[in-house]
C-alpha cells in the first residue's frame, strides 16, 4: 500500500511538449505539495494545496499549472517544456494541521527534456 504514489516514474520528452505528472495519497491528508529537486539535489517547494485550495505558490513560471480535483490528488501540468525543467519532481502530503507536521514523499518523477 503506497502512501503517496506518483506517475509516471520516468518521463523523457522533447522541448516544447506538454506533459503531466499525477499524484495520489491514501493517507487522508488535507495538504499536498509539489517539490522540484535539481541535479545538485536541492529540493525546492513549488506549490501547496490544502483541501483543493492553492495556499503556496512559489515563483514558478506560468507554464507550470497544478490541479487538485480532490484532496487526495494533486497533479502537475507543464506546458512548453524547456531544458531547464529537467529534474525530479516530488509530490508530498502532510496530515498534521498545526506546526511541525512531517511530510510524506512519493518516489519522485524524473523528467528529462531533450
Amino acid at each position, binding site marked *: 500500500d503506497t502512501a503517496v504514489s506518483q506517475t509516471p516514474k520516468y518521463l523523457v520528452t522533447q522541448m516544447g511538449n506538454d506533459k503531466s505528472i499525477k499524484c495520489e495519497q491514501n493517507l487522508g491528508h488535507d495538504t499536498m505539495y509539489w517539490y522540484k529537486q535539481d541535479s545538485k539535489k536541492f529540493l525546492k517547494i513549488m506549490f501547496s494545496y490544502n483541501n483543493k485550495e492553492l495556499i503556496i505558490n512559489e515563483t514558478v513560471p506560468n507554464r507550470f499549472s497544478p490541479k487538485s480535483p480532490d484532496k487526495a490528488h494533486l497533479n502537475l501540468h507543464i506546458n512548453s517544456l524547456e531544458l531547464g525543467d529537467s529534474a525530479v519532481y516530488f509530490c508530498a502530503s502532510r496530515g498534521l494541521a498545526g*506546526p511541525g507536521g512531517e511530510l510524506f514523499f512519493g518516489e519522485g518523477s524524473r523528467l528529462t527534456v531533450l
Partner: protein
Amino acid sequence: SQKIEQNSEALNIQEGKTATLTCNYTNYSPAYLQWYRQDPGRGPVFLLLIRENEKEKRKERLKVTFDTTLKQSLFHITASQPADSATYLCALGSNTGTASKLTFGTGTRLQVTL
C-alpha cells in the same frame, strides 16, 4: 536572503563511530526543524522533528540539537552502520495558518564504511 547550509562534502566515517551532521541557517526564524533521509532514487523520509523551544530530541540512535542563538542544528547518529549511508536533509519550517512551508537544505551525503 534566507540560506540553509549543510556540509556540501560527503562525510565518510567508520562503522561504529558517531556521525555528526551540521545544518546552519541565516536570515530565518523557523518555528521548527526536521531531518529527513534520502536514498538514491527515492523520496525523502522523515526522521525527527525539533521545535524552536526544544534544545534536544532523541530517537533510538539518532539525536538532534537545535540552537536558535547560533542558528544551527546538529544531527548525530551513534554506533553508525553501513545501512545508515544516505543523504540527510535538514528542513526549516514556518507556519502561516495552514500554509506550513518546509524549506530544505542541500543535504549531506553520509558514507559509513566497514
